[in-house]
């Protein structure tokens, strides 16, 4: 096991820069999730850690060794690919044993390790099959097995669950988390699914177009988003953003989003009249109490809660309530952001004000 340290890591393909100076430190045994929209450079970053992609500038350390110029096989890492990259002409057992066979380990050791990994992953009955004869979930497990038999310093995962159906994805998510708690190997996990990130990570790195937007624990990111991007990316359904001007009202601050519509805002030191964006999570709207008027558009009950899509002064807003409301489209309801649960952002820079 080892720590991983990225310092000012950059990557360009030809003259196109895709990663612009990323700093991340990953502690020994930590489970770090890189999350961000498609094309933001997550895979590229992961492949640079693996050594499959050259580093244009900057430094990557694994343990206390700078690995910029170290070949993949000498980095002591294991990677699970999005398409699994199982060797189709080898049985499961040979897929898992391949790295040890190349390393010239003894037959007994190979058998012992493969058996152990197969037991952990429930693959014992499938060792004699070819990858073609396995289901998607089983293949995914073999890919994991191939990684864990090597007992590497670092696990790298590139969207390992994106080819699975929703139910299996949730199940494998738990299994990977469990596996990590058991093996305690430093892991870097790439996904574009923020739910996966929230549920699995010790630490989340939110990326956007080649830059790190924020690094923190899942709840940190949820409670204290650094900017508009992170606020909108983390949490589902996404945070509501309403642009307006700061005013002072009812002895506190408020955001005027329409002539007759003011939302209470958190305390801040900006001057009245400045442009801001107020962010409120759907689950932090109180429905029914006094507040701003909203027009109901669609109501979606899911059983556990009710999602209400409505319109405030021309802006679409989502509210989630634990109660079972019986609104109909066209009704007018009162929405009020819960006290201390709204955020203010600078619309120009995107940075959070309060």
């Amino acid at each position, binding site marked *: 096991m080892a720590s991983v340290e990225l310092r000012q890591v950059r990557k360009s393909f030809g003259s196109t820069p895709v990663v612009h100076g990323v700093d991340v430190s990953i502690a020994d045994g930590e489970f770090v999730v890189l999350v961000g929209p498609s094309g933001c450079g997550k895979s590229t970053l992961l492949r640079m850690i693996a050594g499959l992609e050259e580093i244009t500038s900057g430094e990557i350390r694994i343990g206390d060794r700078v690995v910029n110029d170290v070949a993949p*096989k000498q980095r002591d890492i294991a990677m699970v690919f999005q398409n699994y990259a199982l*060797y189709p002409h080898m049985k499961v057992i040979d897929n898992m044993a391949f790295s040890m066979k190349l390393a010239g380990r003894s037959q007994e050791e190979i058998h012992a390790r493969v058996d152990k990994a197969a037991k952990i992953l429930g693959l014992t009955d499938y060792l004699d099959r070819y990858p073609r004869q396995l289901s998607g979930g089983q293949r995914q497990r073999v890919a994991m097995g191939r990684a864990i038999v090597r007992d590497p310093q670092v696990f790298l995962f590139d969207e390992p669950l994106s080819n699975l159906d929703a139910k299996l994805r949730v199940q494998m998510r738990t299994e990977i988390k469990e596996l990590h708690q058991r093996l305690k190997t430093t892991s870097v996990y790439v996904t574009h699914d923020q739910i996966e990130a929230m549920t699995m990570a010790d630490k989340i790195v939110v990326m956007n177009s080649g830059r790190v937007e924020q690094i923190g624990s899942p709840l940190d990111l949820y409670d204290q988003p650094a900017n508009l991007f992170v606020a909108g990316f983390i949490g589902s359904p996404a945070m509501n953003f309403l642009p307006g001007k700061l005013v002072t009202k009812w002895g506190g601050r408020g955001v005027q989003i329409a002539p007759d519509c003011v939302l209470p805002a958190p305390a801040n030191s900006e001057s009245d009249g400045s442009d801001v964006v107020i962010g409120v999570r759907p689950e932090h709207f109180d429905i029914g109490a006094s507040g701003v008027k909203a027009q109901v558009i669609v109501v979606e009950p899911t059983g556990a809660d009710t999602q209400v899509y409505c319109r405030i002064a021309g802006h679409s807003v989502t509210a989630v309530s634990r109660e079972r409301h019986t609104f109909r489209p066209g009704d007018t309801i009162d929405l009020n952001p819960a006290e201390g649960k709204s955020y203010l952002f600078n619309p120009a820079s995107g940075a959070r004000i309060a």
Partner: protein
Amino acid sequence: MSAASRFFDNRNVLGPLFMLPAAALLLFFLTYPLGLGVWLGFTDAKIGRVGEWIGIENYEFLVTDSVFRLSVFNTFLYTLVASVFKFVLGLWLALLLNKHIPFKSFVRAVVLLPFIVPTVLSAIAFWWIYDAQFSIVSWVLVKMGVMDHYINFLGEPNLARMSTIIANVWRGVPFVAICLLAGLQTIPPSMYEAASIDGATAFQQFRYITLPMLSPIIAVVMTFSVLFTFTDFQLIWVLTRGGPINATHLMATLSFQRAIPGGALGEGAAIATAMIPFLLAAILFSYFGLQRRRWQQGGSDR
């Protein structure tokens, strides 16, 4: 609906009806000449004279005929050596072309050239290259001071065998290379990435990833290559006509020589017919080679 139109709507009528033209063509252009050839082999037909059925007399004679036996040996030598070289060179070329090289598609097109030039044309070119007096190879070697006399490439038995094999390899390599290149391109790059993380060196990646994943294509391509080489005629006929002293006679050239210039149609047909078992063996090999490997099969639990 009339009886006739109902008759033509019946799929048991329509199917055979549609197949009839193709079947007739096949029967006429494939089966008839083949059958005629086999039948001729059992007769003593000469040019200008209808043959009598003489049973296996032709074959009995051929078994004792030292020229025929030499031609069988030559055919096997030619096929074996040329195929091995075509495979090795073709694979090597395919691996090179699969790398990122400048002017990739141009180079690939150039590689295909020997394949698209008519065989007779390239044979004539080689004929000049191997000419006893005007050979460019000899000329260069002499000018460079390596040799002091011109080489008689096609005049000495073993040299002539080597020369014809080289010409055949030159002509056959592009086919093998392009087919194997197509095969190489179906191997996903992530296989190599996974293998390099697993600790495989370049050679081990070739040995454990490239070769096994290419093996189905290799089986097909090499079967075709063997068939083409075994039945080769044009190159030999232009370059040596089977000489010197029959050293480069293949079964195909001997069959032609005995039958047409020699006039012994029956005997020539018998030689050609004698090739059939060998070709069948090659086709059977391809049939088993073509069968999908177990790892390529999907689905079943058993």
